[in-house]
Structure formats: C-alpha cells, structure tokens
C-alpha cells in the first residue's frame, strides 16, 4: 500500500482527519515503519510548538504589572518629566509639611494653584521680552534640559538602555531655538495669525497676545502668548506657554503645554505632557497616544488611546481611556460614561474622594490606595528621609561655616533680633515672588528673575539652618564660638525643630515662624555684607 503524504500525516496528528481516513491511516501505520516514524516526529514537533508557544515571549512575562507596561512606553518621558519636576517636588513636600493654616495659604507660592499660576505668569511675561530674550531663555532652558537628559540617560542606561524619543524631540526643539542661524519662521505682534489659506513650511515661533493658527504648520509650533488657538493643522509638535491654549484643529505630533488652561477639542496624533491649572479634553477631543500631566483640575470627556497619568487635585473622567489610568492627588470621579481599558490606580488622601459610577467600565484591576497624612510616621522611608535631610542640612551648615565663617556666625546671631528678623522675613517671603515676577517683565530681567527664584528657594532652605543653629546655641550656651560648638548647636536645634514641626497645627506655625525668622536674619546679614564698611 502506498504511503500517505506528510500533510495527511500532519492532519492526522492534529486529530483532524475524518474518522474513516484516520482508521485507514492507523491500519497503514501498523505495517509501515517509515510512516510510523514520520507520525512520531510530527507529534514531537507539535509538542515542541505548543510548549514553546506556551512559554510566553520574554516581554510578555508580566503584562499585568501596570508599572512595567506603562513605563515601557513612557519610561523615558516620565524620567525626563520627573527630573524637571524633581526640584519642585522637593520644595512641594517640604512646604507641604509646614501645614500652613488655610488663612495663610496665600503666602504659599507652592500650592498647586499658586504654583501653576506662578509658572504661567513667568512664561506669560517671557512673551513680552521679544525674540532676542526668548533666544537667550531658550538657550538656558536648552542647557538645563541637556543636563537633565544627560543625568536621566545615565540612569536609564543602567536600567533600560534606551531613551524615548518624545522627550528628546522637545529638547531638540528647544535647542534649535538657541541656534541663531536655524531656519525658523518667527512672528511677533499683538495678533499673530496663520490664515486658513497659508502653509508654513518651517518651524514657527509665535509670540504675541493672541496667536491663532487656521492654516497648516508643517514643522513644530512654539508659542508664547496670552491665548493660543489652533483651528488648523500642526504637523509637528506643539510647545505652548500660553495663558490659555485651545486646540480644536489637529496636531500630529506631541503637545507640551505649560498654560493656565488647556482645552483639546480636536485631534492629537501622539501624547500630551505638561502642567496647567485646568486641563480639559472635550468629547470631540482625541489623543492618539497618552497623557502625562500635572493639573489643578483635569476633565476628560474625549478619547485617549493609551494610558493617562495625572497628578491632580481634582480629576473627572467621563471619556474613554484605552489603557491604564494612574492618578495621584485629591479626588477622582469616573462617571457612567467613563471607560478605562487597563488598570485603574489611584493614590488619594481619603477613600471617599474616589467616586466610580456603577456604569463606568474598567477593563483591568482597581487599585485605590489611601495615603493618610499621619501614617508617615509608620513608614521607615519617612525616617530615612528625615535622616537624609538632617545630614544634608548639617553638611550645608558645615560647608557654609568653612567657606564663610563670619557670615554664618553673624546670620545665626541676627536671628536673635527677634521681631526685626520676623518682620523682615515675612516681607521677603511674600515680597520676593512679586519682585521676581516684576523683574521678569523687564527686558533684561528674565535671567535675573530665574536667579532670584533660585536664590529665593535656597534662602527658604537655609532659614532652618540659621534658626536651628541659634536655638542650639541658646540651649547649649557654649563658652566659645568654635565651629564644633556651632555644628553641635545646629544638630540639636534642627532635631528639636524637626520634631516640633510634626506637632499638628503648632508645628506648622512654628515652621512658618522659623522660615520667616531665618529669612529675615539672612536678608539682614546679606544687606550688611553688601556694605563692607559696616562689616568691618
């Protein structure tokens, strides 16, 4: 009898031959060694195939771990953003711990609303500085980004070995600004308009009170303005520093937005990054990739193809999210129309701040974690952070003492002048942000404003050191004024201040008073140091 074809044998092994055919083949196998071997080999092959397929490809090892899945595509961008926000975050946390009473919240330039406002205000004033100023500013920002990227890349290389493109592209866009010879169209005026009939082939840099794009921009669009409206098409990325940004047309690249309010009513090809007081993706809005933002209020009514990561005081989702929704902050509401393809993770202060309507659809797991404020004492990380903070404060104090011994001793001493330091401190704390913004308005003021801002943050940090050292000195009453005595006093003073700082309400008040005292003493001493005659 003639042998069966290999395909017939393969179908037989798959159990897919008809009953009759299978019986005939089985009869044949009894007599034919060759076919028997073939069938055995085919069976083994099937087994190998099934087993190999069952062992999932390496990358599928843990698709359920939301962090890995999400990070794989926004890893680079997140790292970049994290680096940019890291400094702010440190100040945030610290100011947050002050527990400033509600009535005094207006003093706090780092509350979420205060901060977004400050950033918006700064960026808004940049627009009045003209293109030349902007070029300088961009060079500074570009340089900073380069540094952050280098640091970030070093970190990433250790972990993943690659940096995602969008962040790099933002860097390139910003860097190109600092290159004077770069082919770019610049437009400046009260009203800058790209009419529907016009196509801009280069990257467009627009500064003005109102910028309106109805035509097509083939490159990237960079805007510093009061209002930005995109009704037309931007083929590249959109970088906006406008007070109010409205996109009802289409942006094919990414959007990097730093506005007071942002509205997406149209189509976006890729992702949104940035921060704003209020974010809104309307029901006609469509985001081709994901969203990673810091926001005061976040409203999503439209569609986001991939993940949404938000740090917000209030999020309201009634649209659709293709993958994970990760949220940290105040409150989260998912309405009946909301649809989340992947996991939902929320970090909130209280469980009652999360409202998920019964009709809301969530494809993956719900992971809602409550971060109670007081629970920090139970975490070891908290003590570690405090220890690191204390150690770094001691290090800064020691450095100051080695480099400027006279100044440091004198600053410590002038804390003792009580009301003078306190009054001066309050004035500096409240007045410096105003001064910074005013400085930023003037033509040459922007770099100065940035430096002032950095100095302001540093002064707030140093305030605790002066007061700590002073307190330690009072308590220890050392006979001399050696470095050793000063440092010991600082350690004692800081430890006491830190502990007192955790007493509810009173701690906040003490912190606030301490910042004012220290700032005042520092300002007073700076004033004196600037007049050599008095120093002598």
């Amino acid at each position, binding site marked *: 009898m003639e042998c069966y*074809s290999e395909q*017939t044998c393969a179908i037989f092994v798959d159990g897919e031959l008809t009953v009759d055919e299978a019986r005939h083949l089985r009869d044949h196998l009894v007599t034919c060694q060759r076919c028997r071997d073939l069938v055995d080999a085919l069976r083994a092959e099937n087994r190998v195939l099934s087993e190999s397929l069952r062992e999932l490809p*390496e990358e599928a090892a843990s698709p359920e771990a939301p962090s890995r899945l999400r990070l794989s595509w926004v890893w680079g961008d997140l790292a970049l953003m994290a680096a940019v926000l890291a400094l702010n975050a440190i100040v945030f946390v610290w100011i947050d711990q002050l527990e400033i009473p509600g009535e005094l919240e207006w003093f706090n330039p780092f509350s979420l609303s205060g901060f977004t406002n400050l950033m918006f205000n700064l960026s808004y004033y940049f627009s009045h500085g003209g293109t030349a100023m902007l070029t300088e500013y961009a060079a500074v920002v570009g340089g900073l980004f380069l540094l952050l990227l280098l640091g970030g890349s070093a970190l990433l290389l250790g972990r993943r070995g690659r940096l995602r493109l969008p962040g790099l592209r933002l860097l390139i866009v910003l860097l190109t600004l600092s290159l004077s010879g770069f082919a770019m169209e610049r437009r400046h005026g009260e009203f800058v308009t790209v009419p529907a009939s016009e196509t801009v082939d280069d990257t467009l840099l627009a500064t003005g009170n109102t910028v309106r794009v109805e035509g097509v921009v083939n490159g990237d669009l960079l805007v510093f303005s009061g209002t930005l409206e995109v009704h037309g098409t931007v083929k590249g990325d959109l970088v906006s520093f406008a007070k109010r940004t409205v996109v009802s047309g289409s942006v094919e690249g990414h959007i990097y937005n730093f506005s007071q309010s942002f509205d997406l009513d149209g189509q976006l090809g890729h992702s949104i990054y940035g921060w704003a007081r209020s974010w809104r993706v309307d029901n006609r809005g469509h985001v081709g990739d994901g969203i990673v933002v810091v926001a005061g209020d976040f409203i999503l009514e439209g569609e986001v193809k991939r993940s949404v990561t938000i740090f917000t005081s209030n999020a309201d989702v009634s649209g659709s999210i293709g993958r994970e929704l990760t949220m940290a902050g105040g409150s989260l509401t998912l309405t009946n129309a909301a649809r989340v*393809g992947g996991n939902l993770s929320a970090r909130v202060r209280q469980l009652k701040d999360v409202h998920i309507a019964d009709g809301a659809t*969530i494809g993956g797991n719900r992971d809602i974690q409550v971060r109670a404020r007081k629970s920090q004492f139970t975490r070891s990380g908290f003590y570690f952070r405090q220890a690191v903070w204390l150690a770094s404060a001691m290090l800064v104090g020691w450095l100051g003492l080695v480099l400027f011994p006279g100044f440091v001793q004198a600053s410590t001493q002038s804390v003792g002048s009580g009301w003078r330091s306190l009054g001066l401190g309050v004035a500096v704390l409240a007045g410096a942000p105003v001064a910074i913004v005013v400085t930023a308005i003037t033509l040459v003021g922007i770099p100065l404003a940035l430096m002032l801002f950095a100095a302001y943050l540093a002064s707030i940090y140093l305030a605790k050191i002066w007061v700590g050292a002073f307190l330690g000195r009072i308590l220890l009453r050392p006979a001399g004024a050696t470095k050793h005595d000063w440092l010991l006093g600082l350690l004692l003073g800081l430890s006491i201040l830190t502990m007192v700082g955790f007493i509810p309400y009173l701690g906040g008040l003490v912190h606030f008073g301490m910042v004012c005292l220290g700032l005042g003493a520092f300002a007073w001493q700076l004033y004196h140091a600037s007049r050599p005659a008095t120093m002598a």
Partner: protein
Amino acid sequence: MDAKKNSPKGRQLREVKTKQMEGQDLESVIERAQGHDAEALGEIHRRYVRRVFGLCRYMLDSRESAEDATSEVFLKLQRSIKSYNSSIPFPRWLLRVAGNQCIDVLRRRRRGQQVIVEVEDGAAVIEATSAEPSPLGTVIRMEERVQLQAAIARLPENYRVPLVLRYYTELSYDEIGQQLGVPRNHVATLIFRAKQELRRKLPHRSK
C-alpha cells in the same frame, strides 16, 4: 480622621478579598463576573492577562498593538462574559475571543479584507519529498525555544495566525476556518506550510 480610619481598614478588606478570590474556583468567579462583579472581573484579568497578551503578541506584529488588543479583550469581556456557557473550558473560550479580537485588528488594517489570502494552489496536497526538511526534533533547549518563538514571530501573517490559533489556543481546523473565513482544507495547508517554513528557518533542529 476619616482617612485614618479608612486606610488600614480598606487595605485589609482588599487583601482579604484578594485572598478569598485566589482560593475560589474559577466557576464561581465567572458566575460573579457575569453578574458584573468588579472584583471578579479583576480576578479574571489577573489570572489570564498573560495568556491573552501572549496570544495577541504572537498574532500581532508589535507589542503596542498586542497591549491595545489585550485591553480591548478585557473591556469587551465585561459584556461578552454573559454569553459564556460552560460548554467549553473558560480559558479556551477566552482565547477564542482574544483570537477574534486580533483577527479584527488585522482585518481593520487591511481595510476589511480577509486576513488570510487564498492559498495559491488551494488545498493541494504537498508531497513530502526528501528535499523538505523533516519535523523539528523532540528535545529542544531553552535558547532554541527562544529562537523558535522568534521564528514564529517572523512568519508571514498568512502562516503565523493559523499556526498560533492551532497550537496556542488549541482551536480545531473548523474553528480556525470560521474565524478566518477560509475553508477547513486551506487551514490545514496553511498550518502545514507554516511548519515547513519554520523548519527552513531553524534547519539545525531538523533531523
């Protein structure tokens, strides 16, 4: 105060629930999921997301598309799980749904055309000639499995899809034929050719 009270309690409650879920048999989890129980749906997601993703990853060409498809499968599951009756094992049913989802994706990419194009010579039986490589060996080492997986991923869609449906989801030729909209004998030919293609790509495994 509320936060203080809610947080440990809520966490404990969740942990307890998760543990209960793990201990539960699949049937009751499915039953509860059919009644729109979010915890049960979450549990199903936890148990099967890897397998579903694995299938999607083999069927589709990129990790991103596979992730999208996986999300879509679990989203649709909330509605479709009602139609599940225990006539076939749940994992198999779920993989069939996932397979359908992937085929939909592939079809959409081809703007509604069939995923599997006609086999040129129809269901013509290919004779096993001495020139054809023989079936892959029985023993296969770990790194070779990885090679085999890579080779499967590189197969043309035409061959890859039916092969994966057969040996990953363990669908019958008829079921694959139904999903792909091609006759059963085409399925047999495509799977057979897929294997031959694999043998060609991994010649050192052939005896």
